């Protein structure tokens, strides 16, 4: 497995307040080393889960502190980092660029295989791996949400990243597609880091981080993490 290392990672964004522009702290001093093959990130809306995940491939840069993937700094060695870290967004349509899945997978492979024939063969292999040949030539708009999500996954995994980051991969999926995704994720050799509001999915992980207001509020065993998170949510509500 790879080694993902956040040291004092802090993320701020500029916001407009009545008193003029100001900094808002989105993540504050996150110190964590991830080496497990399955890590889930849970937490309330706006707690900072997506920001934490986006740090891992340099989509977001820490304003202070460092984020390293196998020793590579995400701010300075972004290109090498992105070759190692594949990222899957919640909405696969925002990441599928080409009209059909096959073309999209081939797009991923253009640099690796400048030769047209080799590229087509490599794409076919990737699509086959996910059982997607049958859907590969349909318009991505005609696929179901789950099929699209798998297609986006295939396009990302086509270039063999060693780490896969997914931001709420099951949010748009129905029960059946969610199971499909779950089973697919379980078979991947990659190190997988994902955020989710789906606590059952979180329980599939080896380690769970609970993010609360920009900090890691709990880090450890999935069952305990989920219990911690439930208590945290319940505490804010008071008696009914």
């Amino acid at each position, binding site marked *: 497995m790879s080694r993902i290392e956040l040291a004092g990672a802090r993320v701020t964004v500029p916001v407009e307040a009545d008193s003029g522009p100001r900094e808002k702290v989105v993540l504050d001093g996150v110190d964590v080393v991830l080496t497990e093959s399955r890590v889930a990130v849970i937490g309330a809306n706006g707690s900072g889960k997506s920001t934490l995940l986006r740090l891992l491939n340099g989509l977001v840069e820490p304003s202070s502190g460092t984020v390293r993937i196998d020793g590579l700094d995400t701010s300075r060695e972004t290109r090498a980092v*992105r070759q190692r870290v594949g990222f899957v*967004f919640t909405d696969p349509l925002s*990441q599928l*660029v080409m009209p059909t899945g096959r073309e999209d997978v081939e797009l991923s492979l253009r640099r690796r295989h400048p030769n047209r024939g080799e590229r087509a063969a490599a794409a076919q292999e990737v699509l086959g791996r996910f059982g997607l040949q049958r859907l590969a030539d349909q318009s991505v708009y005609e696929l179901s949400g789950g099929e699209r999500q798998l297609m986006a996954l295939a396009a990302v995994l086509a270039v063999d990243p060693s780490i896969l980051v997914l931001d709420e991969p099951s949010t748009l999926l129905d029960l059946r597609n969610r199971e499909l995704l779950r089973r697919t994720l379980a078979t991947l050799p990659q190190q997988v880091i994902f955020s989710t509001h789906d606590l059952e999915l979180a329980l599939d992980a080896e380690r769970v981080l609970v993010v609360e207001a920009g900090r890691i509020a709990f880090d450890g065993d999935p069952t305990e993490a989920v219990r911690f998170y439930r208590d945290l949510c319940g505490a804010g509500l008071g008696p009914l």
Partner: protein
Amino acid sequence: MSGGRPGGILGGYVPGNSWLHRTPLWVKFLAVLIAGAASFLLLDWRVSAVSLAAVLLAWLSAGLGLRRLAGSTRVVVPLLAVLFAFQWWQQGPATAARIVLNLLLCFVAAGVLTATVPLQDLLDAVARLASPFRRFGADPERFALAIAIMVRSVPVLAGAFYEVGDAARARGLERSVRARTLPVVLSTVAYARRTGDALAARGLGDPDEDSSL
């Protein structure tokens, strides 16, 4: 309604074996290039009208169909109408007609290209054409990517335009220009950001040098 479904003139390849399909890619490229240059060079609206008629004729004779043509023009007509009115007011009818006809000409010419050439071929050709620029530090793959994004973005953005129109109508705001345009701008910006992020995340936007080939 359309939910951002692909359609319209840049809606992708239409399989076929017409004379336009069989015309070599470089000839069609040249034609689009000429059509593009025409917008700057043709200074008479009648020349523009004749050129546009010729491209339309090519479109129809290749069996690409009136439906696709109508579907796509529906997308640009509202914008062109606004532009036409504005230019008429600023520069008079002849100039307004020339500008609008030339834009339409480029649009249809580009449409001929994307309808009769599979996108993969188009990308390969663009990357090849751009490869001489490599020595100036340009990355040919980026040109190809830009084309791919363009082809994909037009229908998505057009979809946003109509979707927002529906949303405004549902709220009884169809007369409010603000209710119709502001969300389009916002969703366009959001779309551009998402696409940019997605490409960056896939390493597709990164330059070529020191790549791990």
